[in-house]
């Protein structure tokens, strides 16, 4: 016996040896040249390319494979990714990418894999691949990520110079560079500076008349309602605030204005920054003491929904993940000064963020419903969530009912249209047909099935049957794709007849396992005479949703018409619709409405609700949960599931405990504002500093990562952050501290030892000039002519229709610029020209451009000329109109040369004195002296 075994083994071995030799010969003659010709360009060490992480110039390369796993399974061509991609059957994965291999070349590869993929190229992958791992422990010690320190005040020589602690830090650096600070600015310059910096408006003439106490003046400005309008605007830049979607459909965000006003009010109330952040991330999930607070908290979460979205994206899972991506990108940059969005497809190239970190965060946002329904009735054009704002009963219940009804209209409309589109020869026109239906044409068929349309009782134009032949060989595979995870009833449609089989084997591959069912097709389908339930199963979006109808062991006809997946939550609605169809029951007439009527209903409901008390607030998704990592960021390339968690570099601990069915945003919000996350403080403190001093201590205010700049004054940054934390996150406290510092109150300079030694003013030894912002220019033009209306505005985008694509005129709008509708892709020209923030992205540091269009505007804008004319009319009545115009527009009387120039100009203007004054006013308003602050 033993002998025999040995002998057999030997025989096998030598045979194997021969095969191996043949295999290698086959590889060398056929396969290697093919790989060299078609694959090495992108997948070999020689070319230095390893696209998709795959090398095909060595055996270990395809064994380990690329991002999507092993490239082939020896002996199993049908299950090998390589064959899958060269066959071009998947439009997402086609190799070689430019041209398909010839059928002959494909056969060579298939044969090679069938042979067991013999490959003598045994160079190891390790020789060429160095997997980079992120050292989080080390990264946590980096200046941006480590805990806040309490740096001591540095020693300085000129001890009497500092007024505030921050001055000491600034002075120490100046002294270390052998520089002294510039002189202090004069009172009028300071008042103008303070007024613009704190309210965005020029100082009132009455204030300028009494320049006695700057501290009192600063306090007055800090407490004026205009403070929130100035600083709120900065936050809106970060929040990519807009009143329309942009993206592909520029639909009006009718309810966004509530968020704008919430932000303004938060700054005016000096709300704690931490609470402000928590409310924007998870206000809907926070406890509230009263109705007012609850409303505020819901409105705050509009922040999450404001981004531009590609509403017509047909792949809804991609739309959801793109929406989550936009949120992560915004939160990453606005709150944390980090480009976390970069880690969607691979580990961050420069910063300590893994792809794992990204999907750990994405889980929170994919569990949050922002996009849903349909805006115009087309399944491909999504809408977004709007919820009733808390208010006293019975108004609350009435409004909630209207919102729920709108959402129902959206669903019904999509379902109805779908029914029309799949052809319409069903015997039952009134089937609700909710959920997802796959017709037999969508199935992958194995074997020869016969098409038929003899029975009128069918879904779509045809059904198929096995003709009672080749039993066991034939099967029909339905691969569904479900919009959300949950429990579904799976149903089969088939025209039941006596000659159908009573024991049809059906396999359902669901998330909760593989289920084998035996199904009787002689039984008349119970649902509308068309569908019969197979059972209820749990499915996951993106996970497998397969229903396989087999013929093995059957004798009679196996018939396949369609498969339906209906969420168990829709069953009640379906039952009501059935009852109505049969003349019983009295449900909502919507359930029976035809597609055209539903369209009208949809438009009517949207129009009716556009000025209702709603918030554009997202909510936790019904199928909240962790999500899968996506290989190379491809929506359909699932990697492992990643538990929701905070970024590893900022948090060293176990993942949060999140209740089932909850997004976990509340935990995220709490962690975000916890003392563990010192980055939040560093980033916001630096932002405030940059707004007041013209440049951040970290000059790249939106990027604290490796690609950003290092802080010029790291100790000062931590000092301010610690103080901010100690103040409970009070903006006003920090801003007061800064504007009352001596550093803030320095004079600007043209030329000095400081400008030579430190041209960029990194050491802050002097004041930096700054141009007025777009809003400051427009608001000042209104203010100076006495036209500005200081009332807070409400829904200013309401009257422009369902999208904001048409040109908008604001010549009758006299309120502050922050209240003008912000139409994405269609910004008010007066603001856009002077670098208003692009509302499609986080904009913590508006670019400053100097372009001819600005000059054309200053020369030719009718608005500017109108304001100039108004000022001229007022000047005309004054004893010294030229002086008055200078005083009013520039904040000071003209010097001798300027006065002479103006006088000459007026005299040479001919007879029309009022026109000459209007021209002078125009010139003053267009002058750089007006546009730039000292």
């Amino acid at each position: 016996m033993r002998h025999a075994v040995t002998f057999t083994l030997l025989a096998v071995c030598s045979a194997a040896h021969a095969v191996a030799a043949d295999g290698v010969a086959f590889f060398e003659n056929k396969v290697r040249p093919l790989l060299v010709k078609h694959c090495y360009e992108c997948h070999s060490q020689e070319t230095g390319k390893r696209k998709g992480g795959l090398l095909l110039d060595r055996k270990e390369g395809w064994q380990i494979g690329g991002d999507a796993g092993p490239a082939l399974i020896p002996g199993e061509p049908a299950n090998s990714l390589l064959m899958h991609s060269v066959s071009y059957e998947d439009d997402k994965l086609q190799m070689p990418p430019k041209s398909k291999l010839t059928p002959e070349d494909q056969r060579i590869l298939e044969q090679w894999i069938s042979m067991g993929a013999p490959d003598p190229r045994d160079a190891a992958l390790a020789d060429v691949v160095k997997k980079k791992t992120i050292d989080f422990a080390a990264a946590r010690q980096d200046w941006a990520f480590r805990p806040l320190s309490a740096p001591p005040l540095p020693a300085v020589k000129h001890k009497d110079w500092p007024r505030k602690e921050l001055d000491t830090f600034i002075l120490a650096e100046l002294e270390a560079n052998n520089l002294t600070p510039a002189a202090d600015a004069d009172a009028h310059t300071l008042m103008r500076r303070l007024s613009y910096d704190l309210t965005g408006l020029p100082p009132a003439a009455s204030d300028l008349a009494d320049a006695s106490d700057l501290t009192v003046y600063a306090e007055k400005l800090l407490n004026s309602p205009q403070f929130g309008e100035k600083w709120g605007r900065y936050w809106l830049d970060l929040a990519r605030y807009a009143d329309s979607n942009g993206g592909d459909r520029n639909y009006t965000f009718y309810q966004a204005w509530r968020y704008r006003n919430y932000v303004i009010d938060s700054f005016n109330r000096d709300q704690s920054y931490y609470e402000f952040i928590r409310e924007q991330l998870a206000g809907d999930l926070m406890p509230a003491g009263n109705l007012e607070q609850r409303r505020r908290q819901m409105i705050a979460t509009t922040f999450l929904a404001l981004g531009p979205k590609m509403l017509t994206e047909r792949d809804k899972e991609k739309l959801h993940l793109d929406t989550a991506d936009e949120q992560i990108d915004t939160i990453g940059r606005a709150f944390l000064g980090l480009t976390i969005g970069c880690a969607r497809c691979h580990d961050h190239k420069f910063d300590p963020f893994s792809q794992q970190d990204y999907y750990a965060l994405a889980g929170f946002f994919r569990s949050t419903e922002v996009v849903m329904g349909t805006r115009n009735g087309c399944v491909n054009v999504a809408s977004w969530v709007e919820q009733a704002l808390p208010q006293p009963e019975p108004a609350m219940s009435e409004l909630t009912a209207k919102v729920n009804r709108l959402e129902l209209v959206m669903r019904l409309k999509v379902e109805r249209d779908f029914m029309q589109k799949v052809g319409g020869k069903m015997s039952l026109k009134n089937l609700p047909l909710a959920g997802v239906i796959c017709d037999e044409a969508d199935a992958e068929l194995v074997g020869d099935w016969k098409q038929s349309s003899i029975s009128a009782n069918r879904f779509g134009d045809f059904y198929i049957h096995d003709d009672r032949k080749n039993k066991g060989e034939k099967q029909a595979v339905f691969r569904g794709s479900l919009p959300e995870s949950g429990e579904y009833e799976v149903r089969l449609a088939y025209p039941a007849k006596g000659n159908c089989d009573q024991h049809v084997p059906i396999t359902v591959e669901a998330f909760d396992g593989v289920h084998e069912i035996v199904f009787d097709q002689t039984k008349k389908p119970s649902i509308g005479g068309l569908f019969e339930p197979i059972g209820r199963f749990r499915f996951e979006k993106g996970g497998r949703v397969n229903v396989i109808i087999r013929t093995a062991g059957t004798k009679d006809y196996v018939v396949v018409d369609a498969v339906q997946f209906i969420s168990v939550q829709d069953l009640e609605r379906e039952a009501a619709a059935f009852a109505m169809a049969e003349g019983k029951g009295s449900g909502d007439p919507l359930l029976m409405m035809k597609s055209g009527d539903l369209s009208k209903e949809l438009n009517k409901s949207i129009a009716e609700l556009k000025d209702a008390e709603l918030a554009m607030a997202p909510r936790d998704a019904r199928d909240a949960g962790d999500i899968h990592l996506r290989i190379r960021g491809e929506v359909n390339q699932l990697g492992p599931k990643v538990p929701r968690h905070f970024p590893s570099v900022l948090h060293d601990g176990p993942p949060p405990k999140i209740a089932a069915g909850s997004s976990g945003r509340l935990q995220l919000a709490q962690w975000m504002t916890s003392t563990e996350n010192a980055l939040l403080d560093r980033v916001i403190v630096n932002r405030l500093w940059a707004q007041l001093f013209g440049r951040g201590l970290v000059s790249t205010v939106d990027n604290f990562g490796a690609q950003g700049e290092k802080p010029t004054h790291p100790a000062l940054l931590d000092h301010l952050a610690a103080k901010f934390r100690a103040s409970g996150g009070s903006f006003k406290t920090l801003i007061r501290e800064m504007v009352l510092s001596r550093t803030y109150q320095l004079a600007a300079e043209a030329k000095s030892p400081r400008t030579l030694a430190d041209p960029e003013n990194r050491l802050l030894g002097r004041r930096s000039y700054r141009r007025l912002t777009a809003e400051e220019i427009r608001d000042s033009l209104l203010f100076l002519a006495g036209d500005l209306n200081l009332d807070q505005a409400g829904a200013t985008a309401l009257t422009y229709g369902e999208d904001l694509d048409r040109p908008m005129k604001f010549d009758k709008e006299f309120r502050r610029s922050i209240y003008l509708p912000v139409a994405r892709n269609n910004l008010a020209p007066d603001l856009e020209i002077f670098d208003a923030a692009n509302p499609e992205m986080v904009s913590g540091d508006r670019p400053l451009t100097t372009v001819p269009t600005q000059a054309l505007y200053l020369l030719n804008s009718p608005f500017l000329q109108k304001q100039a004319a108004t000022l001229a009319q007022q000047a005309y009545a004054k004893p010294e109109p030229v002086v008055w115009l200078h005083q009013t527009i520039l904040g000071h009387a003209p010097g001798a040369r300027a006065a002479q120039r103006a006088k000459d100009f007026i005299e040479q203007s001919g007879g029309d004195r009022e026109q000459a004054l209007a021209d002078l006013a125009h010139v003053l308003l267009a002058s750089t002296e007006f546009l730039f602050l000292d």
Partner: protein
Amino acid sequence: MNAFPQISRRHALKTAACGFGSLAFNSIATAASLPRGLHHTPRAKRVIFLFMHGGPSQVDTFDYKPMLQQMDGKKLPFAPAKNLDPSSTSQAKMLGSPWKFQQHGEAGLWGSDLFPEVSKRLDDLCVIRSMQSKGQSHGQAVCMIHTGADNFVRPSMGAWVSYGLGTENSDLPAFVSISPSPTHGGPRNYGSAFLPAAHQGTTVGRAGKLGKDATFRFLEAGGDSDHQQRKLKLLQAMNQEHFERTRHAPVEGMIQSMELAFRMQQEAPGTMDIEHEPEHIKSLYGIGNEVTDNYGRQCLLARRFAEAGVRYIQVSTPNVWDQHSNLIKGHTANAAAVDRPIAGLLADLKQRGMLEDTLVVWGGEFGRTPIVQGANGRDHNPQGFTMWLAGGGVKSGLAYGETDEFGYYAVKDKVHMHDLHATILHLLGIDHLRLTYRYAGRDFRLTDVYGEVVNGIMA
């Protein structure tokens, strides 16, 4: 062959003679005449992009498929693309082209009688029949063709070109978009996103219409030139004094741009005035004919901008090519409106010797399915479609790449939209891998992490 900078220089001298700030002008002119981004010798100096918004059908225009005609009404023998209207994909019935095809010119390229005039010029064209793009819906695909991204906000191709090459004529913008669509991303498609705002497209006209007096924003001067010049003189004196007091660079920038604006005001209306073109030129473009007048004016304006040194000019149709139904009626009308103007533009560029260094690009955001939608329509098809190029360093009389035998999927020598972008930049002398902009900690490119130059079409 570089006639344009001279125009502006001559003009500049004239303006400088008016008296203010010749110093400032010189610094701008120098910067403008040195293209900063050239990586290699360019084959084209400028691009005219004729955008067919909505997506014209490849199988009814330049991609002749006899098998599709033969199998009209039969079922497609392979799976149709995903995410389309189930009414077309579940049946997947093929729809033969209602138009006749014939071969044209020496090269014998196929063209249908939808485009009789352009077909006569097929020997000048390089027809890419294997285009592929991203986005089954207009919103994504329109952004994709213009910005190289289907889902995120990115600078448009014209903005990248402006950023890479600067302007050839300092009196005009480097990037002009004629009558762009406000929808499907609208200004994003000529926007600069995170690039400096100076690179965004300047528009004239809107939504496919030029309008009689279309002009750049705020170009129209209030009051006569003398009046304005007096104001400008006072203003520049004030600004100059302010600059001397502050030495703040942006103040100086403003002084310069005031002069530039003033010159633009003088120059641009002349460039945009097509009324003084000779009659035979106007009729070459179909101007005066009701059907072709609108697009003809836009094409002629494009030529004038090209002549004046604008780098990147886009001429868009309105969103009219989207024939989900009424294919015959819709495509017939759309083609009739643009056929003669486009052929006229090609002829005019050629007779002026400008086609050598002007790259003309024609196409929509995607093509259309060879299978029928509804009774007589075609759905979107980014899987395989046709665009053509002409002039500026590409082979003429070439058909490059192939779709399958029914014209559905690109199968041979596929050219992805990223590849086309890389190729257009290449022809302009720019390496798409090296034209980058650092934003939010990352170096961005028009082609993201994709794109390969299509060497097979280089002349």
